[in-house]
């Protein structure tokens, strides 16, 4: 109604006499005329609204209107060109979402710059949209503490959902590799405040990512989900982040460690044991050469059991094991280091989740040390995209690679994740 008044006032203002003196002289007469016009227009609008309501009610009667409510939809089939009639506000913009991941670490061991501080760890800007029939674009720009909050491309790829062969899809671009269950997940969406040591030390502290092509094929196995994904990706030195300084400033070759074009693959199987329980097993592999000429191979195996109870209750048991093998270019001797985690998560409702996780991992050869931690996790969801989480860990760390070493350490991590905007994740 305010818009109508404003519109009328604007029309009158435009049509008003150009001579301000003349306008002043006829002041009260114009005001009366204006009031009369406004009243008449308001009556016209009311009449039109009544006619519209009658017409709508009439269309309801034609379709057998049986209640006093809105018109009952006509029992006729929709035409082929029928469009969605929702908000009516079309937009060409992609879905845009922003996520902040704040971490506060209360550490018993000294030496870590983030000790006893609560600050933002990473900020992500995610964009996604269907760009053509069967082609979906996704990108994530991330600014993290490690890179001094310089914005970089964490992921930028397109997914092809129609490749002409049933069950075949593909991706093109840079993304976190489909290696196991946790590596493809962004930190704000993971169920833990701290990533398990096996992934941080043997895959990549910030997630193993590569730039290239991959094909995924849903194998036609009856009553079983069997998905094979194979690809070739380029891992640059900066993407691999195979080397990073430890807490004392010494650079250590952490993570997968290979650069250049590498083949990767994942076989993912899943079976619904009943309508509420699902068992998943997977194996992943990626292999390549390090800058030093060493051959590097990373193999993973994962198992997940999910059980849904009621609308919101959920149990999830998950474990992953990684084997990192580095074959020295000189001696040709293979050196294998392994790591694993197992976790149990329980969500009694849609707001809370409780978890227990055990981590045991060594560092990749030739580094010595590792960590063995038992964690308790408590998550509290505020909205679909915002939550806070506490992770209390106790155990031994015998390396300064990422966090300070200490035997019998106790660490408390407080995480606050916030998000805004529309966003969806690929299924993991």
């Amino acid at each position, binding site marked *: 109604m305010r818009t109508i008044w404003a519109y009328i006032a604007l029309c009158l203002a435009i049509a008003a006499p150009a001579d301000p003196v003349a306008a002043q002289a006829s002041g009260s007469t114009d005001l009366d005329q204006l009031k009369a016009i406004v009243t008449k227009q308001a009556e016209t609008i009311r009449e039109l609204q009544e006619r519209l309501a009658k017409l709508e009610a009439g269309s309801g009667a034609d379709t057998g209107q*049986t*209640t*006093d*409510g*809105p018109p*009952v939809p*006509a*029992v*006729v*089939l*929709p035409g*082929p060109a029928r469009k*969605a*009639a*929702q*908000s009516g506000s079309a937009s060409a913009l992609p879905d845009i979402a922003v996520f902040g991941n704040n971490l506060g670490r209360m550490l018993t061991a000294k030496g870590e710059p983030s000790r006893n501080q609560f600050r933002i760890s990473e900020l992500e800007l995610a964009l996604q949209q*269907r760009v053509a*029939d069967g082609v*979906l674009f996704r990108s994530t720009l991330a600014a993290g503490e490690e890179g001094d909050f310089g914005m970089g491309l964490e992921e930028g790829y397109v*997914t092809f*959902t129609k*490749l002409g*062969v*049933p*069950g*075949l*899809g593909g991706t093109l671009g840079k993304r976190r590799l489909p290696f196991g269950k946790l590596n493809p997940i962004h930190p704000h969406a993971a169920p833990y405040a701290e990533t398990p040591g096996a992934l941080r030390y043997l895959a990549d502290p910030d997630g193993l990512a590569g730039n290239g092509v991959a094909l995924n*094929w*849903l*194998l*036609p196995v*009856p009553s*079983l*989900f069997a*998905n*094979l994904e*194979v690809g070739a990706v380029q891992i640059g030195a900066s993407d691999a982040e195979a080397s990073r300084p430890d807490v004392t400033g010494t650079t250590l070759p952490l993570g997968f460690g290979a650069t250049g074009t590498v083949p990767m693959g994942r076989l*993912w199987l*899943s079976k*619904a044991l009943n309508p*509420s329980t*699902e068992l*998943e097993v997977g194996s992943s592999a990626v292999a390549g050469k390090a800058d030093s000429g060493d051959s590097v191979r990373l193999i993973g195996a994962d198992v997940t059991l*999910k059980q*849904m109870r*009621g*609308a*919101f209750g*959920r149990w999830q048991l998950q474990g992953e094991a990684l084997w990192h093998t580095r074959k020295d270019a000189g001696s040709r001797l293979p050196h294998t280091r392994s790591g694993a985690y197992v976790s149990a998560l329980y969500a009694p*409702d*849609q*707001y809370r989740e409780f978890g227990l996780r055990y981590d045991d991992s060594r560092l990749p050869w030739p580094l010595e040390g590792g960590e063995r931690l038992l964690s308790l996790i408590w998550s509290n969801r*505020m*909205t*679909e995209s*915002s939550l806070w989480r506490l992770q209390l860990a106790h155990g031994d760390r015998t390396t300064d690679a990422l966090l300070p070493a200490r035997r019998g350490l106790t660490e408390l991590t407080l995480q606050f994740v916030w998000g*805004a905007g*529309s966003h*969806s994740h690929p*299924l993991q």
Partner: protein
Amino acid sequence: MRMLAALLIAGAVASLSVSAAAAELRVIAVDTNLADIAKQVAGDRASVESLARPSDDPHHVVARPSMIVKLSRADVFARIGMGLDMWADALLDRAGNASVQPDGKGYADCSRGLRALDVPTGRIDPSMGDLHPEGNPHYLLDPAQGILAAGNIAAALIRVDPAGQAYYHSRFLQFGERVKAGLQRWSTALKGLPSRDVVPFHKSWAYFLARFGLREFGVLEPKPGVEPSPGHVGALGQSIKRAGVKVILCESFRSKRWPDLLAGQCGATAAFVPVAVGADPQAGDYVAMFDTIVQRLVSAAR
């Protein structure tokens, strides 16, 4: 490499044999309401399955790999749309089935043609709770909108299986008649309520209330998707007491904790009703589900 090639060839052969063996149409619906509507329209020309269980909250369905298998073999995919079943997008991306992708012949967004309620205007942000920019997506709780959904499903079935057009059309008309008869019945039953005001747990009843001339007095959730707080429940309880509202309307999958607390404070009755076919033994199909909802609502109001 040889093993991989052998695997690929074996898979391709199996793929062809699976598609050749599949003669009956397969309809996959996101929830049991749409699955039941699809069954009523498709009759014995199709098998119908739901991705969600009857006990699921459509907002919070856990997408699982076994659902991808179902979608990969579907001829028709019926969804609620309007952002309520966004979890299904991740499944569609992986299914590798052109027929059920958006714009595919078998894709049925059942909200097409809906006159949405609660469409937010102006700027919205997460501090307002989990709002849907396209409007309130719980339109299937207005039985009349079941006709709209059935029309969208029937149109997809006809696109995929034109030979069955007359059959689907006739079953669609029968379904429409059943719903219209139900509307008459439910409308009459609800006209006798002592108060037109109800307090829902979540803003999922807008279409139902509008259909039967009822009013939303307040909502147990302070904002959509946000857990009630003792302060909010206390203030709401006092207002309910003053206004004499009789019914707290809750989906049967909700925890009883907050509704019972509110009911204890204000003397209203919490009515837990099924909102999905199969969520209750009495909610055997879409029409029977509304019979149950209306019957429990009327009993709670007395």
